[in-house]
């Protein structure tokens, strides 16, 4: 649907116009082709194409007839018949009534709407194309043979051949789920309304109200949302910049002529990349546990006692992953550990591309290394890596793995107001919404939070790209 929508409003202005003209001026075949796509092509002598388009149209109609239309009819209520089952001793099976499954209705409706929009658009194009054929024939010229048509898709229209399958995949596995979840934010899909045994229905903006004001849980949900959002942004900022600068500095340090055996050093740091992230994260979480090996080592060498005397901890161990403040610190540190080798790898490559004469010239002008870093290297890096930093920031806002694997089942919140809405101090918006769906089945609020995450990311992306583009414009 997204695709079609794009086409409609990107619209070559002539799209509706050319369809209208074609439909009005077209001959009987052109007109009929709007209803049965193949008829026009048969009338205009393109049998193969006729068969193909009719087959496609048939599939679409078959889907709509068998399940699409039924679902669309229930779309307004999302179903009214609850599941009931009675055990039949004679057959040893449950006899189940013909019940409605709200989620299936929602899903099939979304798909049906996409199919219908796509089919109407396609139908209009068929008419326009038939009108073209009609005109060509009226001029007495020959229309393309099937092989010629195929050839077009390897040349002028090669991009169509390239994009069809990937776009289809994205539509099915990204766009459809996305629409469904946006829809869920406007329903009461939660633990008390779970298909297949129960039904859920539309509730308008009630869930958004719960998040922002009004509704039973406002105090805690609104509070939790603010807290979690703040930490999400703080985390994304630190996670992005610590790893970026850490990587750059390490790369420069290793690349420096004074460093011997740069390859060996680089390899040493990259060993950690070879172990899959979830293995290292689960490992490290046990490494830093309250009774874990690292705490034993710290206690043995007296660090724990020192920190205790300084008043930084109140426990007999260092609560690396169990105290809110410490946990945030540890998580950012562990993320540096994970992220720096990657960034080093990238930075190494980018640094090599800095024009050597620029550096030479600066050296001759008597610039010291610090000046050279801030005047030449850093601007160059930011220029090249700027967009990547923005994407990294967004990725970190959604960095599910690091937070979830390090804190799930380990960290218990110390903020009772957060606990009331099942959030934790170290949660990102995504881990919070994940826990809401997986442990509390609160899909409606999770969907609302998901939309908020999107808005945050979108605003950030737009603003920062504006900034980058402006800077670039002045820079060059």
């Amino acid at each position, binding site marked *: 649907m997204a*695709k*079609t929508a794009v086409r409609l409003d990107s619209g070559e202005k002539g799209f509706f116009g050319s369809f209208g003209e074609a439909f009005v001026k077209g001959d009987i075949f052109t007109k009929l082709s709007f209803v049965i796509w193949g008829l026009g092509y048969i009338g205009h002598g393109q049998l193969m194409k006729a068969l193909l388009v009719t087959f496609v149209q048939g599939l679409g109609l078959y889907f709509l007839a068998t399940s699409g239309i039924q679902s669309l009819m229930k779309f307004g209520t999302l179903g009214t018949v609850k599941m009931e089952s009675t*055990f039949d001793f004679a057959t040893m099976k449950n*006899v189940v009534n013909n019940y409605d499954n709200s989620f299936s209705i929602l899903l099939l409706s979304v798909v049906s709407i996409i199919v219908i929009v796509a*089919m109407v658009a396609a139908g209009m194009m068929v008419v326009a194309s038939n009108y073209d054929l009609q005109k060509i024939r009226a001029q007495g010229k020959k229309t393309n043979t099937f092989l010629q048509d195929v050839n077009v898709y390897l040349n002028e229209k090669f991009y169509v051949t390239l994009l069809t399958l990937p776009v*289809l995949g994205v539509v099915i596995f990204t766009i459809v789920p996305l629409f469904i979840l946006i829809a869920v934010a406007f329903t009461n899909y939660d633990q008390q309304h779970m298909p297949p045994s129960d039904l859920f229905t539309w509730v308008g903006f009630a869930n958004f109200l719960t998040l922002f004001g009004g*509704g039973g849980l406002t105090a805690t949900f609104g509070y939790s949302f603010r807290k979690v959002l703040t930490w999400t942004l703080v985390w994304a900022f630190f996670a992005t910049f610590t790893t970026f600068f850490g990587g750059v500095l390490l790369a420069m340090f290793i690349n420096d002529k004074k460093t011997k055996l740069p390859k060996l050093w680089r390899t040493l740091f990259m060993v950690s990349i070879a172990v899959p992230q979830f293995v290292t994260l689960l490992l490290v979480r046990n490494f830093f546990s309250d009774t874990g090996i690292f705490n034993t080592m710290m206690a043995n060498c007296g660090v724990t006692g020192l920190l205790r005397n300084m008043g930084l901890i109140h*426990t007999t161990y260092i609560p690396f992953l169990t105290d809110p403040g410490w946990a945030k610190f540890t998580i950012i540190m562990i993320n540096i550990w994970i992220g720096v080798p990657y960034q080093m790898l990238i930075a190494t490559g980018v640094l090599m591309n800095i024009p050597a004469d620029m550096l030479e010239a600066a050296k001759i002008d008597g610039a010291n290394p610090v000046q050279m870093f801030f005047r030449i290297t850093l601007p160059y890096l930011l220029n090249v890596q700027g967009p990547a930093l923005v994407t990294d920031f967004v990725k970190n806002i959604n960095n599910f793995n690091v937070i979830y694997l390090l804190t799930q089942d380990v960290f218990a*919140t110390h903020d009772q107001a957060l606990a009331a809405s099942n959030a934790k101090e170290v949660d990102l918006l995504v881990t919070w919404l994940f826990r809401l769906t997986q442990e509390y089945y609160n899909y409606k609020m999770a969907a609302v939070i998901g939309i908020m995450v999107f808005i945050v990311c979108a605003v950030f992306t737009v603003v920062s790209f504006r900034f980058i583009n402006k800077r670039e414009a002045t820079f060059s």
Partner: protein
Amino acid sequence: MKKAIALTLAGAMALSLAACGGSASVAASESTAQSGAAESTATGAIEDVTLTMWGAEEDQDLLRQISDKFIEENKDKVNLTINIGVQSESECKDTVLNDPEAAADVYAFADDQLNQLVAAGALQEIPAEMNLEDVKTRNSPASVDAATIDGKLYAYPLTADNGYFMFYDSSFYTEEDVKSLDTMLEKAAAAGKKVSMDLANGWYLYSFYAGAGLELGLNEDGVTNFCNWNEAPGADVTQAIIDIAKNPGFVSLKDESFTGELKAGNLVAGVNGTWRANDAAEVWGDNYAACKLPTYTLNGEQVQMASFSGFKLIGVNRHSKNVGWAMMLADYVTNEENETLRFEMRGQGPSNLKALENAASPALTAVVAQSEFASLQRVGNNFWTPAESLGSILAKGNAEGKDTQALVDEAVAGITAPVA
């Protein structure tokens, strides 16, 4: 050109979705076909039935053995295939509720999940014609209660010792010592050892408040809680827990760390369930002993700690295509013979009364002794996070020095909050 995209798009989408439309209609026709097939069984032909059963990792061999017997015993009536999948009982609902239709036909779970599973329609009510009376009478009344909601039995009791109790090193403590937590902590502290109980977990935290006579339970709507921990003497209980947590003879260990500390020889006693008690039995050998929970000091008086009782249950998925055979299987897994076998192979205390007569273990005795002070776990989902949060503040000795009344007030606000 756009036409081409739209065409192929519509086509391919229609193609893939025709498949899902198709599957929906197939499902419908399947169910009629099945009932037809079932009728034909009555007239002689042997039906093919495939069942999936979920059980804990450690139970896989046991379940395979029982299933094979079941298949053998019924081979003249039905051609059975039983697949056994891994699903830890304590987290069963998380998997089942994600998609009840995809869950196993028969699955084992801990009784605290019963109300959520029933609310989600994931459990088959056991009908009278399926051996209902026998199931009710052969199991201990408490275990039947644990599987019953509104007078309807929704699952088959499987074990009776899934609650928690106290176990200790009898070379360190005498039977007199373990009656009072104060004595235990004192002795442990003097020897540089520890007594462990996971305070940062609502399941265990409950025992202090319930011991003091405070209430927690499920409202009639089946999802929200009532809780009066913030009424007197709730604040004092909270203070008592803080004092215990600060005692050098005490440590609040999560399950994952418990065994390590045990093996390192740092623990002399623990409050936990059979799953960790077995580790202790291994480490302490003959000195391993178990008993009911001790008393703790509240406002200068000794108060007996209460507990949640715990049962493992086996339920049948209401969405199963073969509920009948699934119920027969669940029934079979929990009969006297197989619960005895379970006790022998896995050491789990039977809920079956006859099997229980022949079973004896320290854990089982302790659970029976504690049962007087134990109550059924009927708690809504909103209990756990606020209680965990309260517990972890207390376990760290209330480092920020928050007012104890404020602590319980906030916890109760979270526990009794409406389900959003």
